[in-house]
């Protein structure tokens, strides 16, 4: 009988301590879920987030959502069942990603959004976002001054379902639309992709050969636009504006082949998100829902500083 009782006590102890052994079994795990690894900017964001998490003493793994909310959903299900303790998320879609974030929230896992906003203020623990709007207001002013308030232009926007796309476009148009002699002859999506933007601009130029400028929602697309214009022999005539602060565009600004870009700080966003996760593990529960990160205008006048 005694042996039977003893076995029961041991089994109970194993059950109780076995269930609570997760925290003691090793470091907390942080998942970095990124919209795509097919763009160097997001690779930098994800790697920087993972590196910061590791630096703070946590295990970190990167998950690629391939710009697809369904893949992002699978990633979330996998990492919730794998016992991850926090998620640093670069969402694929401002609406489509909400349910994934809520799934994690229900499972008690904090989610810190980086760079891209989701359209909910009660799902993520915090959202650390580039101030895209202000950055593109500055680009819009530069654009108007460069074009001397008149001309035909093309806008190549990013992913239609991404808030950043519209924040950038909105900031730009909040200025440019006030100048009636600036005429937008086409606005099309280049999906934030260099090759797609090149194809899009090539097609647009068949119908609109006389354009004076192109505004692109990111630098990868600005490089695609540059390639299209170079092939058409118009690279010196048409003024290109980008957004991101990518190194190849910085070089092109130095060479006076691209006019301006907005410098984002992905490393600052990644570091802040990892730091917030660390503070969450240490007991902090109140975070600002949205933390804008300043975007700096880069043009010929200040290129020497970058």
């Amino acid at each position, binding site marked *: 009988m005694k042996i039977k009782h003893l076995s029961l006590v041991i089994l109970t102890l194993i059950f109780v301590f076995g269930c609570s052994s997760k925290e003691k079994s090793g470091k907390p795990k942080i998942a970095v879920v990124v919209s795509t690894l097919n763009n160097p900017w997001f690779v930098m964001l994800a790697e920087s987030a993972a590196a910061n998490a590791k630096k703070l003493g946590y295990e970190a793994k990167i998950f690629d959502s391939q710009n697809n909310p369904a893949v992002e959903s699978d990633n979330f299900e996998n990492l919730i069942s794998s016992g991850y303790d926090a998620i640093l998320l670069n969402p694929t879609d401002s609406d489509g990603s909400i349910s994934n974030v809520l799934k994690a929230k229900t499972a008690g896992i904090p989610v810190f959004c980086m760079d891209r906003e989701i359209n909910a203020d009660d799902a993520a623990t915090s959202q650390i976002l580039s*101030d895209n709007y202000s950055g593109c207001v500055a680009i819009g002013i530069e654009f108007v001054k460069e074009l001397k308030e008149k001309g035909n232009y093309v806008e190549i926007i990013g992913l239609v379902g991404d808030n950043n796309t519209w924040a950038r476009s909105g900031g730009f148009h909040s200025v440019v639309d006030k100048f009636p002699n600036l005429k937008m002859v086409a606005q099309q999506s280049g999906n934030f992709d260099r090759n797609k933007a090149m194809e899009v601009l090539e097609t647009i130029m068949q119908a609109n050969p006389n354009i004076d400028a192109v505004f692109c929602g990111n630098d990868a697309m600005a490089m695609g636009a540059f390639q299209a214009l170079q092939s058409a022999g118009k690279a010196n005539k048409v003024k290109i504006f980008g957004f991101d602060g990518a190194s190849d565009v910085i070089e092109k600004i130095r060479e006076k082949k691209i006019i301006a870009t907005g410098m984002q700080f992905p490393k600052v966003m990644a570091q802040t998100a990892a730091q917030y996760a660390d503070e969450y593990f240490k007991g902090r529960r109140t975070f600002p*829902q949205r933390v804008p990160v*300043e975007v700096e205008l880069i043009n010929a006048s200040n290129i020497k500083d970058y």
Partner: protein
Amino acid sequence: MKKIYIYILVILIVALLGYKSVYFKKLSAVKNAQKENFDFKAFVDSIYFKGILKSKKNIALTDLISLVQTNSEMAFKEHGNRLGIGNSAFFMIESTGKIFDIKDGVYTIADKKNGIIYIDTKYIFGNAIRDASGLVKLTDFKTNSQFNKVSESLNDIIRNEVIPKAIKTIKIGDSIAFSGAIKLRKNQNLFKDIIVIPSQIKLQ
């Protein structure tokens, strides 16, 4: 036979009442309507006329420059407004000076204490005035786009109504008092070419 007509009539009346008492709308349309219902114009009217114009928090440009030079940290903490993370902040300043050039909406001012100051009456865009005022919180709005719309409405009032009225009679040689937003970087140590986004200009 008559009963059948009565039943049909009753059914028709019930169906009509049912149809008229319930209607369906797309959830997205309802959500958008809720957002659009917010009266940005009325909100920013109040922010501008009751807040910005009556604010006692503006700092004299001379005092700000002096404070930045002696204790930059305190200057940014006490008078600067930066939402989130960044290397710069907006300040709501006030000063006086004499106009000695007007070109493409930019008023060049000879400010006795601060040298040459530029007031840009044309490019009143972005979040400079909203943020410098410190009167609108990010948490007051559910999304960044709504928060940015506050700036657009505020800028519209100042750029389209207030400033055109104020500068209508102002010419080169006039002395003016002005207030507005300036942006300073934390590592800034040169204070030349200061550009003011005006919130108010008054002939002295």
